[in-house]
C-alpha cells in the first residue's frame, strides 16, 4: 500500500514537472515576443498573437497536404514571422510614426488591438489534423509524454537560449538595449531605429510562432478547452510578473505562471489563474519581480 502511494506521488510529480517544462517554455517564448517589441518601441504589441494565429493556420494547411511535421513546423514559424513583420509595417509603424494627436501614445496600442480583432474575425479557425500528430510516446518516470511535445519543448528551450544570447552578445542586441535605454541617444549614435524595429518584429514573431506551433501540435493539449486563449494571456502575465523590458525576467515570469497553473484542475481555470496573476502583479509589483529601472523610463507616466 505504502509502495503504491509512493509510486502515485512520483507519477504526479513527474507529470507536474513535464507540464511546467512544456507550458513554461511555451509561455516564455511567447512572452519574450512582448518584451522584445516593448524594448524596441516602448509600447505593448497587442497584435503579437497574430503571428501565433498565422503560424497555426500555416501548420494546419501544410499538414492537411500531407507534408512532414518538420516542414509544417518550419513553414508555420516562417508564416508567423512574416505576419509579424507585415503587422509591424502596415499597422504599428504608421500608428507609431504619427504619434501625438488626440489619442497620444495609445495609438499603436489601439491599432494593434484592432488589427488582432480584424485578423481574428476574418481568418478561419485552423483545423487540427489530429491524425498527423501522433508520432509516438516517450516514457518519463512511468508517465507517457507524446514525442511531439518533448521535441517542441526542447525546440522552445533552445530558442529561448538563442534569443538570450542574441540579445546579450551580438551587435543587434547591443543596439536593442541602447534603444530601450535611451532612444534619442541611440538615434544620435547612428542606430537605425526602423531597421531595428523590423528585425525585432521578425525575431519576436518567430518566437511567438514557434510557441504556437508547439502548442498546436501537442496531441492532447486542446482536450476540454473552450478556447486556446491561454498563450497570449499567460504571456502577458509573464511579462507583468517579470517586468516588461527584461527578457530573462519574462522567462522567469513564464515559469512562475506555468507552476501556478498546475494547481488548478481544468484548462479554463488556468486562464483565470493567469488573469489573476496579471492583475495582482500589476497591483503589488508594478515594475515586476525584476525591475529594470533605466529601461523605458519615458513610460513611467
Amino acid at each position, binding site marked *: 500500500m505504502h509502495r503504491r502511494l509512493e509510486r502515485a506521488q512520483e507519477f504526479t510529480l513527474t507529470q507536474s514537472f513535464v507540464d511546467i517544462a512544456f507550458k513554461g517554455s511555451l509561455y516564455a517564448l511567447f512572452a519574450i515576443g512582448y518584451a522584445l517589441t516593448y524594448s524596441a518601441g516602448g509600447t505593448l504589441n497587442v497584435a503579437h498573437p497574430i503571428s501565433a494565429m498565422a503560424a497555426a493556420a500555416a501548420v494546419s494547411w501544410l499538414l492537411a497536404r500531407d507534408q512532414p511535421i518538420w516542414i509544417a513546423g518550419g513553414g508555420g514559424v516562417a508564416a508567423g514571422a512574416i505576419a509579424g513583420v507585415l503587422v509591424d509595417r502596415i499597422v504599428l509603424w504608421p500608428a507609431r510614426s504619427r504619434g501625438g494627436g488626440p489619442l497620444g501614445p495609445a495609438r499603436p496600442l489601439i491599432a494593434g488591438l484592432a488589427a488582432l480583432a480584424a485578423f481574428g474575425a476574418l481568418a478561419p479557425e485552423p483545423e487540427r489534423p489530429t491524425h498527423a500528430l501522433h508520432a509516438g510516446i516517450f516514457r518519463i518516470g512511468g508517465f507517457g509524454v507524446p514525442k511531439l511535445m518533448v521535441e517542441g519543448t526542447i525546440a522552445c528551450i533552445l530558442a529561448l537560449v538563442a534569443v538570450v544570447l542574441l540579445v546579450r552578445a551580438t551587435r543587434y542586441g547591443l543596439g536593442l538595449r541602447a534603444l530601450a535605454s535611451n532612444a534619442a541617444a541611440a538615434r544620435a549614435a547612428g542606430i537605425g531605429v526602423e531597421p531595428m524595429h523590423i528585425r525585432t518584429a521578425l525575431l519576436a514573431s518567430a518566437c511567438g510562432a514557434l510557441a504556437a506551433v508547439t502548442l498546436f501540435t501537442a496531441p492532447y493539449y486542446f482536450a476540454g478547452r473552450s478556447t486556446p486563449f491561454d498563450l497570449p494571456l499567460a504571456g502577458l*502575465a509573464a511579462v507583468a510578473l517579470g517586468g516588461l523590458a527584461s527578457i530573462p525576467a519574462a522567462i522567469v515570469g513564464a515559469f512562475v505562471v506555468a507552476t501556478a497553473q498546475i494547481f488548478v484542475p481544468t484548462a479554463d481555470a488556468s486562464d483565470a489563474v493567469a488573469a489573476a496573476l496579471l492583475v495582482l502583479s500589476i497591483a503589488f509589483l508594478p515594475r515586476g519581480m525584476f525591475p529594470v529601472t533605466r529601461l523605458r523610463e519615458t513610460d513611467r507616466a
Partner: protein
Amino acid sequence: MPHAFAPLAELFWRFGIVGLIGLGTWLVLRCGRVMLGNAAFAAIAAAATAPLVARGTPDAVAALAGVLVAAICGAVFGLAAARATSAAFALASLSLWAVELSVRAPSGPELRSHGSPAFVVAAAILAAIGAWRYALSRHGHIAAAVGQDERAAQAVGIDPVRARITAVTLGALLAGVAGSLSVFYPGFDITAYRLHGDIAGLAAVVLGGVGSSLGPLAGAALVAIAAVSPFTKEHAAAVNAIGLLAATIVLPGGIASIFSRAARR
C-alpha cells in the same frame, strides 16, 4: 412589435449599449489610460442581472443590482491598476478578457426578454449629458489634467491615482448600465461581449472622436448601423475592427475632427 420595426429596434438597442460602453472607455481615455476590456464590466452586470430576472425579481431592482456589482468590480480594478504605467494599465485591462470568456448567463430567448430600446437609448443620452457636465466640472478638469500631463498635475497638488480610480469606476458603472439593460434585449447573448464588445466600444470612441462626450455616441451610431445594415451585418465584427484600425491611423480625431476642420475653413 411589428416585424417591420424590428431592425430599427435592434439599431436602437445596439446604439445604446455600444454608446454606454464607449462613454465608459472615453472617461478612462480622458485620464490618460486605455481601457481595452470595458465590456467585461457590462458582461459582469449582465451575469448578475440575468439570474435575478429569471427568478422573478422586479426588473428595476435586478438592473440596479447588476450596475452596483459592475461599479464595485470597476472600483476594485481601479484600485489595483491605477498606479500602473500606461503599458501596464493596458496589460491589466487585457486580463478582463478572461472575465468576458468565463461569465455565463441565460440568453434573451431563455429569459423571454421583451424590453423596449427606449430605456437604453435614454440611458445613453443621459450618460452623454452627464459625461459632458462631468467634463466641465472640477473633477472633469482634474481628469483631463492627469491625462494631458501627469507630472504637471501632480505638481499642482492633484492626486492622479484618485482621478484614475474615479474614472475607471465611472466607466465600469456606465458599462454596467449597458450590461444590465442588455438583459432585456430580445436577442441578448452574453458571449457577444467577448472582445467584440471591447472593439465596438473603442470603435465608437475613436470613430466618433475623443474630443467630447458626444463623440462616443456619434461613433456608436456608426457601429450600430454597421451591425444592422444588410451589407455589413454578417461581418460586423470585422467591419468594426477595420473601421477602428483605419480611424486610429488615418483619422485619430474621429469624424468630429472633420467637422471641426470644416468649421475652421
